[in-house]
């Protein structure tokens, strides 16, 4: 965990900070200032199906894209700005300072982009990365299947050769968030049934407009959701869409999962102190106490406990980011996934305790919109410890990969 001398770097970064600040003051549409916490999912998701209503969103995309700043750390050759992580952090810090949204967001940046940079061939990089940077293509994830659950390697989506240059896909994916709004999907598919489970998997990219691809929305216990099931019926895909080697997709898949976990941790921790503010606000509203100590000492204790959990979590995000920036280990995405999602669940449970009977509505005038929405969010939060790699899977990873505890023989 050696850390570069802060002194020398600061000078260069300070200069870059000033440059970015000036750029944003001049070029960012005024209408967007103060509108966003600048999290990895707060902003324009791109894609052909739902162009933005607000032309300023496209203008902000254009001015940043021109400097490669929609994907600041990606190489310039693929539409990025070739910046270091430290520089990128300065850029995001400054946007956050101004409440500016990231110019384009989505799974292209957080998941498939970094994966293509690592495993894609030159043609694939040139085909997809600039399109992601420009927000032209929106991506969704085709990992989970109905019979797999946490056992992601249990891939059944059939992928069989069709002539020398094509594959035919048949089967079903589930939990494909926003599949109905996406242009492309990255999939795990089964190319060899005789090999050991992790062996016969291929990582393949599919254009959602291909004939035979059908997304269907899933309703959750909290109501409508971005999740879909996606069905594949004789879907013909060029062999050139395979990332990495045929039957070697599991390696690609695991790398992408690491990107996903970090992203979940970061997206939940993106607004320091927000949990405390939210709970104190709910306490003031529902306990009818405009100021001073929260009158119920047990609820006050609970709010403080969750708030402290938030603070410790937030500081841990900072600490690990600094450790990574200093070249230290960055293998702690599993603990952040667990900590982030359980913090979120405790936050909503505490909020529900504060809301009391006002949290028991589903529909109807007896409840205000805010209360009804909060209850739905509480329900939704139960999925946080399941999706993106369940807590149980993360605990397995920590036990084995971080603590080195032995496998069962």
């Amino acid at each position: 965990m050696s850390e570069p001398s802060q002194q020398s770097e600061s000078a260069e970064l300070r200069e870059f900070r000033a440059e970015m600040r000036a750029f944003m003051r001049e070029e960012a549409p005024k209408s967007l200032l103060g509108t966003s916490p600048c999290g990895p999912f707060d902003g324009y998701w791109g894609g052909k199906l739902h162009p933005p209503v607000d032309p300023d969103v496209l203008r902000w995309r254009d001015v940043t894209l021109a400097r490669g700043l929609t994907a600041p750390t990606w190489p310039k050759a693929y539409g990025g700005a070739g910046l270091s992580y430290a520089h990128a952090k300065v850029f995001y810090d400054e946007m956050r300072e101004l409440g500016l949204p990231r110019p384009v967001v989505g799974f292209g940046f957080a998941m498939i982009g970094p994966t293509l940079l690592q495993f894609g061939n030159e043609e694939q990089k040139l085909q997809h990365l600039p399109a992601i940077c420009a927000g032209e293509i929106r991506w969704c994830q085709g990992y989970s299947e109905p019979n797999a659950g946490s056992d992601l390697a249990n891939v059944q989506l059939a992928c069989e050769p069709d002539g020398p240059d094509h594959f035919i896909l048949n089967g079903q994916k589930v939990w494909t968030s926003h599949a109905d709004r996406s242009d492309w999907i990255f999939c795990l598919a089964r190319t060899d049934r005789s090999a050991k489970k992790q062996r016969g998997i291929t990582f393949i990219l599919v254009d959602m407009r291909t004939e035979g691809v059908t997304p269907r929305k899933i309703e959750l216990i909290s109501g409508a959701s971005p999740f879909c099931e996606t069905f594949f019926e004789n879907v013909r895909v060029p062999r050139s869409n395979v990332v990495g080697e045929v039957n070697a997709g599991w390696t690609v898949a695991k790398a992408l999962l690491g990107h996903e976990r970090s992203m979940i941790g970061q997206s939940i921790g993106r607004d320091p102190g927000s949990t405390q503010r939210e709970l104190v606000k709910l306490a003031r509203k529902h306990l009818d106490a405009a100021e001073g100590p929260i009158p119920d000492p047990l609820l006050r204790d609970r709010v403080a406990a969750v708030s402290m959990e938030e603070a410790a979590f937030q500081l841990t995000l900072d600490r690990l980011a600094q450790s990574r920036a200093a070249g230290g280990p960055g293998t702690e995405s599993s603990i952040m996934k667990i900590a982030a999602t359980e913090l979120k669940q405790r936050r909503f449970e505490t909020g529900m305790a504060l809301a009391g009977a006002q949290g028991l509505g589903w529909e109807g005038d007896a409840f205000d919109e805010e209360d009804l929405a909060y209850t739905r969010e509480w329900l939704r939060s139960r999925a946080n410890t399941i999706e993106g790699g369940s807590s149980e899977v993360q605990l397995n990873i920590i036990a084995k990969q971080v603590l080195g505890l032995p496998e069962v023989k």
Partner: protein
Amino acid sequence: MSVVVSNGQPTLTLVLDEEQQMLRSTARQFVDQHAPVGRLRTLRDARDPRGFSDALWKDMAELGWLGLQLPEEHDGVGLGFFDLAVVLEQCGRRLMPEPLVSTLLLGAQALMLGGTSEQQAAWLPGIGAGEKLVALGFDERGARGNPAAGKTRAVRTGSGFTLTGSKVGVLDAHVADLIIVSAHVDGQLGLFLVDPSAPGVSITRHVALDLRNAGTVTLTDVLVGEDAVLGGVSGLDNGGSVLDQVLDRARIGLAAEMLGAMEQAFEDTVNYLKERVQFDRPLGSFQALQHRAARLYTSIALARSAVLAAARTVDQSSDPREVAKFAALAKVRASEAFYDVAREAIQLHGGIGMTDEHDIGFYLKRAQTTLVSFGTNDALRARWAELNGY
């Protein structure tokens, strides 16, 4: 029922006798057959105006369950609260939205504990026959479940009282034939019998999180006679104490429902763990999950004892403070266990447990609702402490 005395403490009978076992098994069969949890989804999506099945309610009346605990003089079966709890547990298994809590636990108990013989005669036979539904309103916005903190007032007029105020979360108000409300009058808390169709009464139904049915009852200068006071005008100063006892019974009855619900959710989850294969093994063979299931099982076993003891105490004790202690115990232990079970049930079901099309999510919605209803765990622990002198 025998009370064995040991160490100065009566030992409560906590097992079912043969008749109760038969009652239980009949109820279980009936509920499994006629009241699948999926009904909740259908009733919700159809925006059913009543939100439960009248036909089923009538069947339950015919089976004698609605009059189970009602006195024989009012056409009831004359059994105990414990027997009613046996049935409630089974109804709770499938989260039945029928007006059990409103009519049997709140309404009937209020009438039995506080009503004049005329009032009992007027309402109890209809309740037992499944012909009359009763609601009881005691909570108000901002009162957080404490009846004394409500603002509804009754003002004496020449011939009776005028009621003004608003009650929230009134279970089954939208279908009730009678609504009992608490109101401050002359520095007391009185209970009043209100005709839902009387001028000045307005009822707004809402869809509740757990798909039981509830609404807001607003009273604007509603005129009632002296005979509308539960227990008659002479019993006006008794309302607060009757309401306390009614709420204690509601806590115990609700805890019996919760017991059934947690048992069913747990059973479904254990079955899922046995069937669902991941990583080429049944999920249930993973030790970390086994231990979590075993802990839930232990919590449920302890909750069961608390609930049965509380129900038995209603029948055996003449001391409302004793019933109140057991009510707090049963509700708290059941709430804690039920919430844990419902939460873990979703987690252990994984993604499918989060979908609306699977039934298991309904248990979490019910668990949160019961956690807050008739006293939070915090409030009931404080009540327990107070009743135990600290």
